[in-house]
Each structure stands twice: as C-alpha cells, then as structure tokens.
C-alpha cells in the first residue's frame, strides 16, 4: 500500500480498510467505537434499572427482566465498555509515547479487537434468542448460574470466553511491545506514566484472565456437558467458582483503574506545566497496587465462612492497598501545587476525579474490615462503593483521556464549552446518583432487589438517585453531540495543542501511519519538554532517514473471530439438538483453517521507500 492509496475512497473500501487493518491507531478507533457502543447500551440498561427503582413497588419491568438488566448492565460495562475503551486508549497512545512505529504483534492486536467485538455481539444476541439474557448477576455465582433456565447464562459463558481471549492477546501484545520496541534512550524509568500503567495493566491481564477462562470452562462443562464441578450431589463445590471468579475479578478492577491513574498522571503534569511529582514513587506505587491486587480476592467472600484467620489476612492485605493509592493521590496534588494550571475539560475531569475517587477509596477501607462487612455485604453500600471507584475513577479517567488525546487521535479538538457542560452535568449527576446510595445501603436496602416497600425511609433516596442518573445521561448525550460537532466542523488540531511533554506531541495530529519518520532519540524524562527547555523544540532523530518496514493488512483476524463466534452459537444450542454440533465443527474449522493459513503463508510486510518519505516531506 503506498501513500497515494490512503486517499479518499468509497464507503466499501473504508469498511474493508478498517476490517483488515493492523495499524494500532485504527484499531484504537475500532476499540473506541465498539467500547462506546456498548457503553451506551450498558447506560441504557442502567437507566431502565433506575426507572424501575424510582418509586416504591414499581412495575416498570418484570422481576425476571430486572435480573437480566442488572446482569447485563454489569457485564457490559466492565467487559465490553470500560476495558475496550481503555485498550483503545492504550493502542492509540502507548506506542507513540515510547517512540515505536508499531506494536510487537499487529496481527494479534487486530485479532484481539475482533474477538472482543464478536464476543460482545454474541453476548447481546441473548436478548433476542434462547429465552432471555443472562440473569445470574455479573458474578454468575454457582449454583444460581448452573440452575438458571434457558440459554442466558450460556451466552454469558461463551461471550465472555471469546472476548476474554481477545483481551489476553491485547495484553501480551502490549507487554512485548514495551519490552522490545522502546526508542533509543527510552529507558523504563523514562516512560510516561500512561505507558507504565499500560505495562502493569497488561501484566494483570496476563495473570488474571486465565483464572476466568478456567472458571468459564467449568461453568460451561457443568451447563452443557453434564460435568459435576458445582453439583453438590456428585461431590461438587460451588465455592470453587467464587474463588476462580474473584481471583480474576479483583485484579480486573485494577485493570480498570491503573490505566486511568496513568492518564491522570500525564494530564496533571502536562496541564500544570510541571514535572510529575514523585515519578519513581508513582511507578512503584503502580507496581505495588498490582502486586497486592492479586492478594485480596477473598475480601469479596468475607461472608462465605472462610474463617477468622483467612478473613483477617485478606482484610489486612486489602487495607494495605490504601498506602500506594494514597501515595498517588498526594503526588497528583503535589504536582498541581504551585503549577501553572490550565483548567480545560481534561483538567476538570482530573480535578473531579481526585475527591470522587478518594470517597470510593475510603468506603473501600470500610468494606475491607471483615467484621463490618457482614453489615455492608450485598447492600447498596457496596453498590455505591464500586460505582464511586469505577465511575468516579475509570469513567472520569476515560473522559479526561478522550478530551486530552482526541486531537492526537482524530486531528480535531473537542468543543471546550460542550466539554465543560458534559463534565458538570455528569459530575453533579454522578454524586446525586451514588452518594445517597451509601445511606440507602446502611439503612438496609439490599442490592439486586426488584422492588422496595413504601415508607421504609428509602423513597426519597431512590428518587434522588434516579434524578442523578438522568443528569448523567444528559451529560453523555451532550458528549455525543460534541463528538459529531467536532467531526463535522471542529477546529483542526495542531501537533502539540497542550504544550505537551511526551513523544506523542512531537508528531503531527493525527500521526502519519508510520508514526515516526525517524525513530526519536530520547534524552530524558519528558523527552519533548527536555528539548523545549533546551530551546530546540523538536526531537532529535536517532537514525538517518531510511526505509520503514510495515506490516500487511489481513482479513484473517476477522475470520478467526467469526469462526469462534459461530462455534459459540453451536455450543449454546447443541444442548437442544445435537445437529447444532455442525456449527461447532464448522466454526472451529474456519478458525483453525485461518490460523493455519496465517502460519503457512509468509508475511514479511512491506517497506515504505526512503524516496517516498522524502517526497512526502515537501
């Protein structure tokens, strides 16, 4: 593909380009699109939940449908919205920050996206076929999940298995990229915090997801092939699911939060015009949080009856995480201290994040106390806590990152006025929705209940919560309008709109498809800032201009993912009729055949010639 071929073409060619692309920047667009779509879907489910709970004994939706709503809201938001959006940001930014032309495995990168997308679509097909969506909660505890009638939980199992495999590939790709492809001079301790967060998050993905894979296999075998892992009559043990699930799902919440810690670190430093306070402490705090994150899964299981010793150990380990997290909060504050702060949308989200997330952290410490947890367990207090960290942390972080890196990703700056309006509506709506839920929980309102009774002191709180949810929804709609407005007639972005410090701001917005014409030479932490302070203002190249090696596009990732999805439908419906096994064989056959073609066909990529690069400079 030459540069001339990247000019305007028809919609079909545009679609084909995105389906076959292996360019990390385009894969980032796909992740943002896919994750954004599922975020809206999950948000819609949240609104239906809040409408049902707006008044006592409401019958807006039936009890069964309510169970499906809460299950799909949780599952969609965590697996299909938050994580893909974060993976999209990592894809867009991390290779640029470390001065790489590409990622280590462009093909795997594309495969990871398509597996996620197909897994998400498969999961959501449950609404239309097989007797309803999964309804056993996003945690799918056995034996509730093994006994759940219909195919809902089967869709949960296969959908998450397929999209989880994609996430694992994404993690391995980022790890190898950071190990082997940093630019000359970009030592580990010079990497921007977002790249560090990507690295550590990928480690978490690598070691956490296989536990989910195993848990889902066991559940799949029990539901579809008559095994007895969770069947107590045959000696099974339902607690195994809880362990496997939380061994995955606790690190998972750090997979959701660590990347945005990186986002806030980069934004705080850039928009305060100061070097990040305590860079080394920030890096080690990230590593420590990740490490401790694997040691605390049983704090979700305090009431199971593991015994006082186990509960105490897990309680103390959980509280210990507050230390590195506190280090981070104080370092952000110290970075802003005395800085020349620009208050724009990205900075507003950052400023809103610090108190919101701290409240979530504080209730986290309260929940970590095993004794007190017997009171909080399965109440709205828990719901309030995890929404404070996941919305107040992850969603705020994603919004901050989108406003900050939108110009780099799409070449246009989001409208500031609408950006600020989005923030204020969402920020106020968020606190209205969830702050009051702490008290609803303490007053005894259990989570996952379809209705509550009148005059129990819960009426006003629930109404306030629902009003807040509508404010958040309006905020999101305004953000969408902003996106379309910017796409149609937003201001063109310069290469460096925020007076940036790291390498991504040294190249044009959006970057050329080969990223760096010449690999940059990194001469310190905040490499672009170093050059600016020395009066040069641009990065020194580490090599003379030469041919650039690029990977070829491929349709195979799409076909492999399609194959596994077809097999997924087969697995789900072979329980009803063994004829559906044909789909299993056909789907896995397609996937394996595509993999074999990938293995047998040499793919050396292509080179952009030096002359072509020189011509382009003119």
């Amino acid at each position: 593909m030459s540069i001339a071929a990247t000019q305007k073409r028809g919609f079909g060619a545009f679609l084909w380009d995105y389906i076959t692309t292996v360019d990390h920047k385009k894969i980032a667009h796909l992740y943002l699109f896919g994750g954004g779509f599922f975020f809206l879907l999950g948000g819609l489910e949240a609104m239906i939940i809040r409408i049902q709970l707006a008044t006592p004994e409401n019958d807006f939706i039936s009890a069964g449908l309510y169970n499906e709503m809460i299950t799909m809201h949780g599952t969609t938001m965590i697996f299909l919205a938050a994580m893909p959006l974060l993976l999209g940001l990592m894809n867009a930014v991390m290779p640029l920050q470390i001065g790489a032309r590409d990622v280590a495995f462009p093909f795997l990168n594309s495969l990871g996206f398509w597996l996620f997308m197909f897994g998400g679509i498969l999961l959501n097909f449950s609404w239309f076929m097989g007797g309803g969506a999964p309804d056993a909660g996003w945690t799918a505890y056995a034996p509730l999940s093994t006994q759940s009638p219909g195919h809902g939980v089967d869709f949960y199992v296969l959908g998450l298995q397929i999209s989880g495999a994609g996430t694992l590939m994404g993690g391995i790709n980022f790890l190898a990229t950071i190990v082997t492809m940093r630019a000359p001079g970009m030592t580990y301790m010079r990497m921007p915090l977002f790249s560090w967060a990507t690295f550590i998050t990928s480690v978490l993905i690598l070691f956490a997801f296989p536990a989910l894979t195993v848990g889902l296999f066991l559940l799949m075998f029990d539901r579809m092939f008559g095994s007895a892992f969770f069947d107590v009559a045959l000696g099974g043990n339902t607690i195994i699911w809880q362990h496997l699930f939380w061994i995955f799902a606790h690190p998972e919440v750090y997979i959701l939060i660590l990347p945005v810690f990186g986002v806030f670190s980069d934004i705080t430093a850039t928009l305060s015009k100061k070097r990040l306070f305590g860079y080394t402490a920030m890096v080690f705090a990230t590593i420590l949080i990740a490490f401790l994150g694997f040691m605390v899964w049983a704090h979700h299981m305090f009431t199971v009856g593991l015994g006082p010793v186990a509960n105490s150990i897990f309680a103390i380990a959980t509280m210990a995480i507050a230390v590195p997290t506190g280090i981070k909060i104080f370092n952000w504050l110290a970075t802003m201290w005395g800085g020349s702060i620009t208050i724009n949308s990205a900075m507003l989200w950052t400023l809103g994040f610090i108190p919101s997330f701290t409240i979530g952290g504080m209730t986290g410490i309260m929940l970590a106390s095993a004794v007190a947890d017997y009171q909080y367990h399965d109440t709205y207090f828990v719901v309030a806590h995890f929404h404070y960290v996941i919305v107040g942390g992850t969603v705020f972080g994603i919004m901050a990152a989108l406003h900050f890196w939108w110009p780099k990703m799409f070449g246009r700056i989001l409208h500031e006025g609408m950006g600020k309006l989005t923030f204020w509506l969402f920020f106020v709506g968020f606190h209205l929705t969830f702050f009051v839920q702490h008290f609803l929980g303490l007053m005894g309102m259990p989570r996952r209940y379809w209705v509550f009774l009148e005059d129990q002191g819960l009426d006003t709180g629930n109404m306030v919560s629902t009003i807040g949810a509508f404010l958040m929804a309006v905020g999101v709609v305004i953000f969408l309008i902003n996106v379309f407005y910017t796409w149609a007639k937003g201001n063109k972005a310069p290469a460096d709109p925020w007076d940036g410090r790291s390498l991504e701001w040294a190249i044009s917005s959006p970057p050329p498809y080969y990223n760096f014409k010449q690999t940059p030479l990194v001469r310190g932490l905040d490499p672009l800032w170093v050059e600016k302070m020395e009066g040069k203002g641009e990065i020194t190249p580490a090599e003379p201009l030469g041919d650039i090696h690029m990977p070829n596009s491929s349709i195979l990732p799409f076909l492999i993912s399609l194959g596994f999805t077809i097999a997924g439908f087969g697995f789900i419906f072979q329980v009803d009729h063994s004829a559906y096994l044909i789909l299993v064989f056909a789907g896995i056959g397609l996937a394996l055949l595509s993999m074999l073609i990938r293995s047998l066909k040499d793919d050396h990529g292509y080179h952009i010639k030096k002359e072509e690069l020189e011509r382009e400079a003119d």
Partner: protein
Amino acid sequence: MSHDHSLNPETMPQEPEKATLEGRNKFYGLWFFLGGETVLFASFFGTYIALRNSTAGGPASTDLFGLGLVFAMTMILLTSSLTSVYAMYHMKNNDFKKMQLWLAITAFLGLSFLALEIYEFTHYIIDYGFTFRSSAFGSAFYTLVGFHGGHVTFGIAWLMALMVRNAKRGLNLYNAPKFYTFSLYWHFIDVVWVFIFTVVYLMGRVG
C-alpha cells in the same frame, strides 16, 4: 533489505531466534503467553486438588491409577523434551536436516504419549465406568489431564505444520524463531506433565 535470510554455519548468529526484532517479539510474546498458561493450569490444579476426594461413591484415585503406564508416559514426554533440545542445538549450528530429524522424533514421541493417554482414558471408562460425569472427581480429573492432552495435540499439529512448511527451504532468520518458540511451548507442556504426574498420580496412589 532482502527477505532472504538464508544462512550458512559461518553467518549464523549466536541466537538466531532473537536476531531480528520479529524474532525477539515472538520470543518474549511466547514467554508471556506461558505466564498466562501457568495461571490457567494452576487454576485447574487448584480445582482438582479441591475435588480429588469427591468421588460421590464412584471409583476413587486409589482404585484407578496404576503407576506403570503413567511412568512410561512420563519418560516418553521427558525424552521428547530432550529431543527438542537436540533439535534446537542443530538449529543453532544451521544443520537443518538434523534439526528436522530430531523434531520428527519429538513429534513421534508426542504421538506415542497421546496414544497411551487415549488408551488410559478408554481403560478407565470401559473397565471402571469412570467418566467425566461420574463425580466431581471425574470431571476435575478429565478436565485437568484432558487440557494437558489438548495442549500436546495442538503442539504436535503446530510442529507438523512448521516442519512441512519449511521442509524444502531450510533455515533462515524468519523461521528460526518459529521453531524456537515451538520448543519453548513444548518444554512448558512437559513441565505441566511433571506436576500432573506428582499431584494427580503419585498423590492419587497414597489417597
């Protein structure tokens, strides 16, 4: 830059599997993948250990396992790891023919292991009526050992594809990392089996 990385023993780099960026990526990528696989098998082992006495009145490990067959399987798989080391030794000396020979022996040993495992499973099912659905112990046993067997099967298929694809063109810096990453994977499968031998069969004998 030419795509033809054909080599002779004089120009062969010290570590052909890591001589190119693509090779280094594959090398690290596979190591990371094995890290994830470790957690995968650790989870299966944890499940098995929790359920190994949950026989629900069906056959127990002390009734089923005989060490003779499993010892033979262990020796075969360990030897196949050794033969893959020989193959990598010849790869580094750019002796393609000998590498293919040792890889063929590796594949043969892998297939022998697989045949014995299939025999073992049929033996349990037919002679003892011990199946995947008999008890939680049965489910955990067949899942853990079966996933390992699945990994062996995939490894053999991978190896065959590599050998056939490259049979006529010899070694170069493009395919050397592919052979090398296979050998890493194969060693990993072997290590997992050592744990299965210990945790499932040896511990199963003492009950």
